[in-house]
């Protein structure tokens, strides 16, 4: 059993794919992990290390081949089916914003509320207030195609926050943004997460991003995919952008980089 106070627990979780030619690919090899309530944990590693697969298994999008995933005491996968109870309080953000073009911004943000049967007036009210939370005031009625990449991800963040989730699962949500917008979004993300006390699992391949945002970093190596090490990030919150230029920050980034490279070599 995961320790008390833990939000998300993974026990000996593994995932094996079968290729068409019949070879077995071990996407994830026996991962054990506990994420505490309100903790921000990053899964860090190069492509092909299975980090996205881990996140998708937690989110209930892909069943693990073996092992157990628990969300607040409830198994996410029960007899190969995702448990609606366990995944109810999770929200996921993807690499693309995935806003539906046939809805405007507030309708997109209100979508998960609509799916939970909330009436139109109350869900749109909430969507509007979320718009201002993520700095999208004035764009409530805009079409997604008229927004920049960064603004779209803001809307996606607002949508994820709408159901007041206890856990946020983020799959490289800012990976497609340019360096500057990415910095801004990370500051924003940190602010929102701190204010709401939400548990976060973030998948990223940027060491600096992981160090900047996380309480703990799980570094993964590919082929065969495995956990290299788990780092605790000591910096005080809220962290300013300038932190990234400090020697301590750079040192930690360098140390993690060296470890991953050594593990991959």
């Amino acid at each position, binding site marked *: 059993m995961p320790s008390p106070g833990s939000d998300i627990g993974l026990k000996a979780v593994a995932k094996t794919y079968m290729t068409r030619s019949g070879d077995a690919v071990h996407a994830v090899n026996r991962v054990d992990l506990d994420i505490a309530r309100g903790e921000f944990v990053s899964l860090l590693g190069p*492509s092909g290390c299975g980090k996205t697969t881990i996140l998708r298994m937690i989110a209930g999008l892909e069943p693990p081949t073996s092992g157990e995933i628990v969300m607040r005491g409830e198994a996410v996968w029960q007899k190969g089916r995702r448990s609606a109870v366990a995944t109810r309080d999770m929200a996921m953000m993807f690499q693309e914003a995935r806003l539906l073009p046939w809805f405007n911004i507030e309708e997109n943000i209100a979508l998960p509320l609509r799916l939970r049967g909330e009436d139109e007036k109350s869900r749109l009210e909430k969507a509007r207030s979320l718009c201002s939370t993520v700095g999208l005031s004035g764009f409530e009625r805009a079409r997604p195609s008229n927004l920049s990449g960064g603004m779209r991800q803001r809307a996606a963040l607002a949508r994820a926050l709408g159901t007041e989730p206890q856990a946020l699962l983020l799959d490289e949500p800012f990976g497609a943004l340019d360096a500057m917008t990415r910095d801004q979004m990370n500051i924003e993300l940190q602010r929102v997460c701190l204010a709401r006390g939400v548990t976060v699992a973030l998948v990223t391949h940027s060491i600096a991003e992981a160090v900047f945002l996380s309480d703990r970093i799980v570094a993964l190596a590919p082929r065969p995919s495995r956990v290299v090490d788990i780092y605790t990030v000591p910096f005080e919150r809220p962290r300013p952008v300038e932190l990234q*230029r400090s020697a301590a920050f750079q040192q930690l980034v360098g140390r993690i980089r060296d470890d991953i490279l050594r593990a991959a070599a």
Partner: protein
Amino acid sequence: MNSAQPAVRLPSTDAAAPKRPHVTIRGLSKTFGKTVIYDNFDLDIPRGELISVFGPNGCGKSTLINMIAGLIPVDAGKILFDGMTLSEIKFGYVFQNYREALFPWMRAFDNIAYPLKMMKVPPAERKARTERLVAHLGIKLDLNMYPYQMSGGQQQLVSIMRALVVEPEILFLDEPFSALDYEMTLFMREQLQKLFIESGTTMVLVSHDLEEAVYLADHVLLLSRHPARVADFTEVTAARPRTDATLSDIDFVRTKAHCLEVFQREVRRA
């Protein structure tokens, strides 16, 4: 900086001699609709160097190299290559989207040899020159494959070879790795650095990744928002060939931090 100097091919690049500018840009102006992208812009690009162009989104990084390479007409201004115009020199261009830049109906070999065909080089010599380039670069690739049979990185490699086969005096690269995944990007950076060291060709690289820009460059050209100015022209002194160790090198980290600072200052200004 000495070790970064190309040893072959260009007789004028003697390590001791002061660098002559290769490309001189004077009074460049460009307007899109109502937005002034460039206004009376001046720049010298040193010979035999790799220049990274970096700046906030929409500052006109790609526009700059597209104007130098003649893909976009300039509104006003002069761009000269050792005093010559673009039509008088040989140059290469590598597009961001390799999928749409290579010809899928041609094998990799014919793709690489295509610019020679345009220069009316006879077939036998085309073959010889292409083979010589491939051998020289030491790249292991089955050139009888069609582009769609290759990985993204291999396709971009073919695209770069196609640009190099004419032995260009200058090579332009517009975010050449941004459509590749992260690991492939790392691999391709090494490949590009190798090509640069071996060919000594002047290269102008547009990048949106600061680490990449600094890692590959002799000078980082930092642009401000429009109308674009040169915010800084930072020299990167790390020795070549650069490796992973370079990334944690204290000088390198300092240079990168400096570039980031300039960049953030420019962003805030806007």
